[in-house]
């Protein structure tokens, strides 16, 4: 079964984020970038599906500038077969991004398109279900694991306080969250092989953003509070402060 996995290059989740002098962008110096972790869950899920079914091709797709090649090479090193980079600007308008991706995916007959549930930079949780609407495909979000069963997929989905089992007709869009298996690390052999795998670069379709960024700010500094004391002896004072000062109990 052919699978398309849409990925995004984002600052590593360990990165300390600072706003630059313009007040509209982050300070890029010193930031390490990586594939968004949820997208890595999606790549891992695609690889496992391919390993268990033994057939099919995994294609990675991203929108970004040429630096996103690095992210695609990582996915290829993990085991994906080929990659497509749509060169264009990534805005805060998830629908604009979804339109660009959908435009490229429109002719695809891949039964599964996988996304991360959200990108770890904009945290929007939008693009996957929006692409599904634009392509008129059914979509399940928050999928931790799934199995393909004939012409449908059975998905396990996280919801508040529990899980759901959801059946979806193929072709479908699934938006992945963390599952029971960690994304694999690329082995040296995979990294070498990735260099020879096809990576196509082409201009993205025009899709103007209708979300205008007016300011980017660091969160208000949270001043360190006080150490109430040491050990169990400090508990009565803590409880008093929580009740009388913080009004939290």
């Amino acid at each position, binding site marked *: 079964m052919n699978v398309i996995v849409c990925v995004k290059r984002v600052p590593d*989740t360990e990165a300390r984020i600072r706003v630059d002098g313009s007040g509209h962008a982050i300070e890029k110096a010193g930031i390490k970038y990586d594939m968004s972790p949820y997208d890595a869950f999606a790549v891992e899920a695609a690889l496992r599906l391919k390993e268990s079914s033994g057939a099919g091709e995994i294609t990675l797709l991203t929108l970004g500038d040429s630096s996103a090649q690095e992210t695609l090479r990582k996915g290829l090193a993990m085991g994906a077969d080929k990659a497509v980079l749509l060169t264009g600007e990534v805005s805060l308008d998830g629908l604009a991004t979804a339109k660009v991706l959908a435009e490229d995916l429109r002719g695809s007959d891949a039964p599964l398109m996988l996304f991360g549930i959200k990108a*770890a930079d904009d*945290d929007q949780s939008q693009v996957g279900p929006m692409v599904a*609407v634009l392509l008129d495909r059914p979509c399940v979000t928050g999928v931790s694991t799934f199995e393909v069963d004939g012409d449908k997929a059975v998905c396990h989905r996280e919801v*508040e306080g529990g899980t759901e089992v959801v059946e979806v*007709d193929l072709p479908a869009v699934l938006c992945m969250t963390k599952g029971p298996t960690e994304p694999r690390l690329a082995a040296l052999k995979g990294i070498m092989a990735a260099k020879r795998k096809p990576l196509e670069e082409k201009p993205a379709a025009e899709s103007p953003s209708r*979300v205008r*960024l007016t300011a980017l700010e660091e*969160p208000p500094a949270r001043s360190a509070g006080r150490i109430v004391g040491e050990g*169990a002896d400090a508990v009565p004072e803590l409880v008093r402060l929580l009740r009388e000062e913080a009004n939290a109990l």
Partner: protein
Amino acid sequence: MANVLAFAEQRDGQVGSSAREAVGVAATLAGSMGGEAHALALGGPGLSSSAASLGAFGASAIAVGEHDGLADYNPEGYADAVVAHVQAGDYGAVVFPASTLGKDLAPRVAAKLDVPLASDVTAVSVVDGTVSVRRPVFSGKAFAEVSLEASPAVVTIRPNVFQADEQGEEGTVSTFAPDVDPGSWRVRVVERKGASDGKVDVTEASIVVSGGRGMKDPENWNLLEDLRDAIGSDVALGASRAVVDAGWRPHGEQVGQTGKTVAPKLYVAVGISGAIQHLAGMRTAKTIVAINRDADAPIFGVADYGIVGDLFEVVPKLSEEIRALKAGD
């Protein structure tokens, strides 16, 4: 002049705090747009009695779509019903909760309406007739102010951030039968597990008790469960990434980047050192308590109150003291 629609999420036929918060935000926006706040609730037969309560929180009209097929959430049925309602109403903005349901539904509605969406917003305003919002990016390591240059502006609002104020007025309730066809749905929920056993989700609880690697063993979570029970209802358990990765706790409890972002009234971090990804997910809690044996742990840098010490002595004592306090209330 434009009205604003709040989507009122229901679970088991009852609207809850997420619906009240959405109505509150819709009322704020409607006030700035010179219109009225309306609410839309979708569910099974009998929903209208619970949905009627939203009038007191600022909804002048409450539309209740009742259909057997909509008793539980279905993405296709709900999206079609919401889009039909929005298109019939000429709304300037539509407000959803940023719950699991809202985050699944709102992008579908926005895409069908061909308008952009701002997710998980923590503040809203109207500037020169355009909806402007503040929202966390990088899991709360920064905040973006964005304006939505299309109408209706669609937003999902972060739980626990907006106050729902009772205004004591009544809204007009109208019940209708949504035009949906369950037979055509390509997504079907076949089983629900654990979602209705009364457990409150970590993103929605007003108090979160979280454990990290310092707990040493998954069996020791009985200490945190006891603390949760001592504090009372509306308390959820959370966990650090390290203990979720170790398989001690389910991913649904993970707080931080690659987990949930929470904004409770009180966050108690037990045996959590405070990695940057964890801090990003909980730093907007109103009050933070840290219990850790390492006085240099980064968690103390964001905590309002800290106790340095052995959690296996501190936590049982804390449960005991809180029980004594509550007994005196």
